[in-house]
């Protein structure tokens, strides 16, 4: 599936959920299901420091595909981290660099991407893009 197909799939999943409570329960569920990152990977260079909750991001590049694993110490953030990984992981750097992330706004959680939220999610998205842009540039050389 393309990045946008995955985003659309997530949007329709959330459309089936009614109230905010159901959406949050689903996100919390996703947070619980996302395997915790190996403690040895939770190093400071993988830490994206938000004021409120912390996010760790690990990137792996092989066979032309960029793969992400991530974790957070807050469950709701972790659920959203899981969604971002589902959308962006496993594509080419070029595709990731060019992707426009719209699903978070569409499912009504845009406040999580606001700079004032300081939960690390926005920084994580930026960091994912940064990896992709750097690799895409390298590939062009």
């Amino acid at each position, binding site marked *: 599936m393309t990045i946008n197909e995955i985003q659309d799939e997530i949007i329709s999943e959330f459309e089936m959920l009614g109230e*905010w*409570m159901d959406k*949050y329960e689903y996100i*919390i569920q996703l947070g619980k299901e996302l395997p915790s990152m190996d403690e040895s990977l939770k190093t400071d260079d993988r830490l994206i420091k938000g*004021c*409120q*909750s*912390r996010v760790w991001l690990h990137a792996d590049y092989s066979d032309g595909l960029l793969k992400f694993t991530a974790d957070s*110490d807050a469950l*709701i953030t972790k659920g959203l981290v899981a969604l971002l990984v589902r959308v962006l992981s496993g594509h080419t750097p070029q595709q990731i660099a060019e992707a426009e992330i719209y699903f978070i706004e569409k499912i009504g959680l845009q406040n999580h991407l606001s700079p004032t939220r300081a939960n690390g999610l926005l920084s994580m998205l930026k960091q994912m893009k940064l990896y992709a842009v750097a690799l895409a540039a390298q590939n062009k050389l």
Partner: protein
Amino acid sequence: MENGTAHTPLLKNIAQVRQLFPILQSSVYGKPLVYFDNGATTQKPLQVIEAMDTYYRETNSNVHRGVHYLSGKATDAFEAVRKKVQRFLNAAQEHEIIYTSGTTAAINLVASSFGKKYVLPGDNIIISSIEHHANIVPWQMMAEERGASLKIIPMLPNGDLDMAAYESYLDDKVKLVAVNYVSNALGTVNPIEKIIELAHRNEIPVLIDAAQAVQHMPVDVQQLDVDFLVFSGHKMYGPTGIGVLYGKEKYLDAMPPFMGGGEMIQTVTFEKTTYQKLPFKFEAGTPAIAEVIGLGAAIDFIESVGIEAINRYETELLAYLIEALKSIPGLRFVGEPEKRAGVVSFLIGQHHPFDVGEILDKQGIAVRTGHHCAEPLMRIFNVPGTVRASVALYNTKEEVDVLVRGLRRAADMLG
């Protein structure tokens, strides 16, 4: 001032008090707003909002400089509030009241000016482990500049200060003690009478950060014999951008100005400038005039209810809140001080405070989550932060019940 029986009825009729706060009538996410983030800032009563509005409509002008009618009127109103603050704190003299932009600015002023005058290499400043960053960083900056060091009063496991350690730090190297009256992160009410008395025995002046105190309890600077006391208008029903530094004349007189500019000078030549007397020496530039007027209205509001009555009401509400929180499985308090005001910090099980705060938010309940600008303290407790509920005079037991139901729901959802 306070007149118990005459004032109690207003608080008994809490619905009437709430009517005075427009924002308390609002909804968030379609749910009635339940505001328990008063430690961060309180909501504003109509009389504060209207005082500022009226000032801009009818009086606006610069102070202390004009020959014209409006300037005189603005200056009178501005200085009348200084008198009001003097009375509110029971300060000996009007010019011991310095307007600042807030607690942070007031502490920075003292750190800088007091430091220049009194602090030498090798000296010590005492602060405590339960301070807001505003009462840590300015001292660190000053200490670094002056070649001095900070001594930190440790905390007992319950969140009270270790007074024996404090006493042992007091020697002739210590130039100032700066501690809060009430901890914004834990709610600890520090024994400041004792802290001041012990410091004074060693002839050391004391600064009290009363940002979390003046809205909850009577503060009498002469009775306390405190040397400096600071607070913010916005945490006591007043506007943002205005705060107060109270300082004893003998120190303020001796300290050099903090900022230079208009208002604070007597004569200026390019060779030398002589400074105005107190309080203007410390009030460079055009002050926050409308905010001063708003602060005056906030003091009127507090006095119309009566600070003793507020204290009684909030103490009872806080006790009710703490009992109610105890009914939540897995809830643990972060800090269980002997004496508490305004604030309760807690965690539920292993749940991240941010998750709990977010689910409360969706139910229309505002609390604070995080480290509360007290990172060193969170490190001592070894927690990423806490959930903090802080009360004001308009909160009700019904709102406490809503909070507790909201917390149970959050705990359920986070499983």
